């Protein structure tokens, strides 16, 4: 089962993901991998990494350092992988060391993770929810936020479960969630079926037209 998890900072995403990974590996007796995606840049990053490593102590994780190109790093197709985080994967790829920006990074990561979801069945992705504030950001930041949202949406769709963590409480979102009756009624009421029929008729008229003057 592939799982997508997102939520606010320090809302318990990593803890929940780790418990889930341990449970998944335990049930099937498979190797447990922690995919460390953060490339540390300063002491704060290094402290965070240490804190996360301390949290994972004794849980049986094998740590793989992979800030980029996940498909090459995840070689054990029987393994259970905790990928923490999608946010770091995107920033590693999008913001180059020379200060330039790789605009196709979201598309590249989206395709890579989608492919992984199709070939492997025990992946847990952790992302960060950064979409509910009123701040106006620079174009660069907006491009990053939008890119991450695109990846998140792909993962939520491709994974078997999508979970939002809210202060330790997981909420699951479903692809097959019932469409509210009110929206169904709107769909029934709107005349798109009639418009489609009209378009078809029009298309048929166009098709029926003689192709060239010689046909006339």
């Amino acid at each position, binding site marked *: 089962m592939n799982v997508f998890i997102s939520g606010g900072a320090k809302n318990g995403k990593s803890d929940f993901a780790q418990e889930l990974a341990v449970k998944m590996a335990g049930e099937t007796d498979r190797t447990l991998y922690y995919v460390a995606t953060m490339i540390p840049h300063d002491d704060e990053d290094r402290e965070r990494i240490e804190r996360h490593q301390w949290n994972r102590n004794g849980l049986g994780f094998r740590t793989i350092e992979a800030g980029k190109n996940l498909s090459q790093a995840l070689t054990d197709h029987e393994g259970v992988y905790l990928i923490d985080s999608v946010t770091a994967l995107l920033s590693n790829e999008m913001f180059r060391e020379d200060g330039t920006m790789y605009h196709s990074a979201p598309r590249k990561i989206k395709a890579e993770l989608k492919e992984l979801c199709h070939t492997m069945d025990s992946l847990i992705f952790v992302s960060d929810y*950064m979409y509910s504030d*009123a701040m106006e950001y620079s174009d660069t930041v907006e491009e990053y936020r939008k890119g991450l949202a695109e990846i998140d*949406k792909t993962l939520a769709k491709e994974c078997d479960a999508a979970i939002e963590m809210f202060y330790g409480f997981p909420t699951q979102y479903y692809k097959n969630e019932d469409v*509210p009756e009110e*929206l169904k009624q*709107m769909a029934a009421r709107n005349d798109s079926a009639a418009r489609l029929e009209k378009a078809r008729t029009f298309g048929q008229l166009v098709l029926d037209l003689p192709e060239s003057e010689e046909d006339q």
Partner: protein
Amino acid sequence: MVLIIGGAYQGMLEYALEKTHYRPSDVYNCTRDRVDIDFSKRILNNVEEICYACLEADRNPVKFMAARRSKWANSVIIMNDISCGLVPMDPRDRAARESASRLAIYLVNEADAVIRVFAGLAKRLK
């Protein structure tokens, strides 16, 4: 009225279009510089922007929408949740952010259905 709420880029409009079969031409995108909203469109998008526009025109967004209730009573209203995160530095942005939440609460009460969209997936709240 069906209210759809979610964070930026979460796919609220895509969800609304997919489920109602309305088309992009049925959508009115609210902007923060206009209060003359085209209520004839079936889907009102980015409705939080009305708050900025109303405050600019010295109007109360909740009263503004309440006075036009009959015009959107059968519409889909989409709002970006802007209530979390840092408090904006600009006093007008601060006021708009607060009034957006008040407007959302008013619309939640008025709505026949409320849906939250997270990473493209919907959950019915009301």
